[in-house]
């Protein structure tokens, strides 16, 4: 019961934070959506990191390390440290600058302008929303698993089928409602504050979790003895978890997964909140270090869990049916009720710091890309009605995601791989839009359609599609490699085969003294 009380208290604290952020609001749409471009380096670092670290990073990585061993860090974390910063460096700064110059709030606004096509937005919008839903699902599933795992045995009579703990459906629902509440009241400022607060919470408590689990599992007098003791048990029982053995081509394809950050809609919106281009420097440099601080403990804890013995009993005598529960169950066994509750709040902080940005972003996209985009320029509309529609849209998407979470939940890690593969397939589009003058509207359309068709084909080939088969490979690699290759080829071939954009369009996005190739002879605009 103590754990549950602490989790509830933490959720109430977040609601209060949203309310305080609302009091700082300047009362404008730009403030609500982009915090008036006032976010400095520290807040930007914390909000970008908090947004990219989800249940995938904490709950998923621990569960996957329990299954596969320490190789999970090489598969996802060290590659993300390089590639995420690369995305901030190469894509984020450039998009921020264009957003400042032309007033963009969403990706669709940028692409409509860059490609000179309003209709392109109606193609990209459903694709982005369709990819955000499985991303949301990762968080919703993770939240339910954490709350259930840590509250097991809390109720004497109720919820027998959930181990007498809060059932996952109820935990997920509560988290969704709390995040919706503080996003609706605090807007982007509330989201950035909550992200910063929650990132600090989950990093500090993550390290505490690591220390507590090491002490309990490893024993010994000093902390180093505990670490050695915990690993020694694995060395005896499961030595295969302490080495890496993925096929090289398969390992390479994992490098492409974090490229997806370049096309996350919520990350785009966070980029635009930056006060200046210089504000990106701190996130670029420190992001790999933060990933290290979060992932190494999670991976080690997952590996230790395979052989952990507490009070003379094996913690996992049999593998849990759902690997998402490895971390919360372990916490429930080794930490006292107060610490266990605090640490669970830390995990939920990681989950919610992604969900909030995604919720806000969905509302922004619907408002700007669909509702306002359909208005005539001289038409005066009811802003209150637009806001209500945007909020209804967010609630509808969250409801769909929640209903999906009630079905057979797949492993968070594997679900994430499919979701990120789709976003990675869109990265050639944003790179070409920023750096390749020869990109054309037909090339962009072909690339998006190629990504969608390839993704769907591979997903359906994967033993029926859902839940995803973690062993599934195509051409010896994750599907992301094929999706990326096909989308890139379609973009380049079709762009080269069609008329280049006008010099007027190019002049807007490629200043005369910028690098990126020679000017192209003027040609008429392509029909929309």
């Amino acid at each position: 019961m103590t754990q549950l009380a602490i989790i509830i208290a933490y959720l109430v604290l977040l609601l209060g934070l949203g309310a305080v952020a609302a009091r700082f609001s300047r009362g404008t749409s730009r403030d609500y959506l982009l915090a008036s471009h006032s976010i400095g380096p520290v807040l930007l670092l914390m909000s970008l990191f908090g947004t990219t670290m989800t249940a995938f990073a904490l709950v998923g990585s621990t569960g996957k390390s329990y299954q596969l061993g320490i190789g999970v860090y090489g598969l996802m974390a060290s590659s993300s440290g390089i590639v995420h910063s690369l995305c901030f460096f190469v894509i984020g700064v450039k998009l921020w600058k264009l957003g400042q110059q032309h007033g963009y709030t969403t990706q669709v606004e940028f692409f409509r302008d860059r490609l000179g096509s309003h209709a392109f937005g109606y193609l990209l919008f459903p694709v982005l929303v369709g990819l955000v839903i499985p991303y949301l699902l990762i968080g919703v599933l993770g939240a339910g698993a954490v709350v259930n795992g840590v509250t097991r045995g809390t109720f004497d009579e109720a919820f027998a089928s959930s181990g007498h703990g809060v059932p996952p459906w109820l935990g997920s629902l509560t988290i969704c409602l709390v995040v919706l509440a503080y996003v609706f009241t605090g807007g982007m400022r509330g989201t950035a504050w909550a992200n910063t607060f929650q990132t600090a919470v989950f990093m500090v408590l993550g390290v505490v979790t690591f220390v507590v689990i090491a002490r309990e599992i490893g024993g010994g007098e000093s902390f180093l003895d505990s670490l050695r003791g915990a690993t020694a048990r694995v060395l005896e029982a499961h030595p295969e978890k302490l080495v890496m053995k993925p096929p090289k081509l398969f390992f390479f394809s994992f490098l492409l997964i974090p490229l997806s950050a370049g096309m996350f809609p919520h990350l785009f919106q966070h980029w635009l909140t930056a006060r200046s281009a210089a504000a990106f420097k701190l996130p670029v440099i420190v992001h790999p270090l933060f990933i290290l601080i979060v992932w190494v403990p999670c991976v080690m804890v997952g590996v230790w869990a395979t052989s952990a013995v507490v009070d003379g009993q094996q913690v996992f005598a049999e593998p849990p049916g759902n690997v998402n529960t490895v971390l919360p169950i372990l916490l429930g066994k080794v930490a006292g009720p107060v610490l266990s509750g605090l640490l669970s709040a830390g995990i939920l902080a990681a989950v919610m710091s992604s969900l909030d940005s995604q919720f806000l972003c969905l509302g922004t996209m619907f408002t700007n890309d669909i509702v306002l985009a359909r208005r005539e320029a001289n038409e005066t509309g009811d802003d209150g009605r637009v806001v209500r529609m945007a909020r209804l849209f967010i609630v509808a998407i969250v409801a769909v995601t929640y209903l999906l979470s009630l079905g057979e939940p797949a492993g968070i890690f594997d679900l994430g791989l499919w979701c990120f593969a789709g976003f990675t397939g869109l990265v050639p589009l944003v790179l070409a839009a920023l750096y390749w003058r020869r990109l054309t509207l037909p090339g962009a359309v072909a690339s998006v359609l190629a990504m969608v068709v390839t993704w769907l084909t591979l997903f359906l080939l994967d033993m029926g599609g859902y839940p995803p088969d973690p062993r599934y490979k195509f051409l010896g690699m994750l599907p992301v490699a094929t999706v990326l290759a096909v989308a890139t080829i379609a973009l380049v071939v079709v762009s080269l085969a069609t008329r280049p954009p006008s010099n007027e369009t190019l002049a807007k996005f490629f200043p005369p003294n910028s690098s990126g190739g020679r000017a192209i002879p003027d040609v008429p605009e392509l029909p929309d």
Partner: protein
Amino acid sequence: MSENPPGSRLSRSAFWLVVLLLVGAQQWSGSWSSETLVLGFLPAPLFYHVMVSLAAVAVWWVGTIVAWPDDTKGPEALLSDAEVVRTTGPSEDEVSATGEPS
């Protein structure tokens, strides 16, 4: 806004070469099957990737000096987040807005 990033063309090229080397190091499989435990608890393959992550921090730090894509830096960029909240008042268009997000 200046379009001329700091650093010479040579240093920028060298930086991107180092990024490629970093990616190559991340993909290197030489330590994968090592059973050594660094400090008696950290498996060698994991230790190697931790070193890759730390190397990434150093490489990106250098990148922000020699190859930063934009040298835009308004006066507000030098202030802390709290200072901006204190010093930045609402602009004219913000005052005239509806008060509701749109």
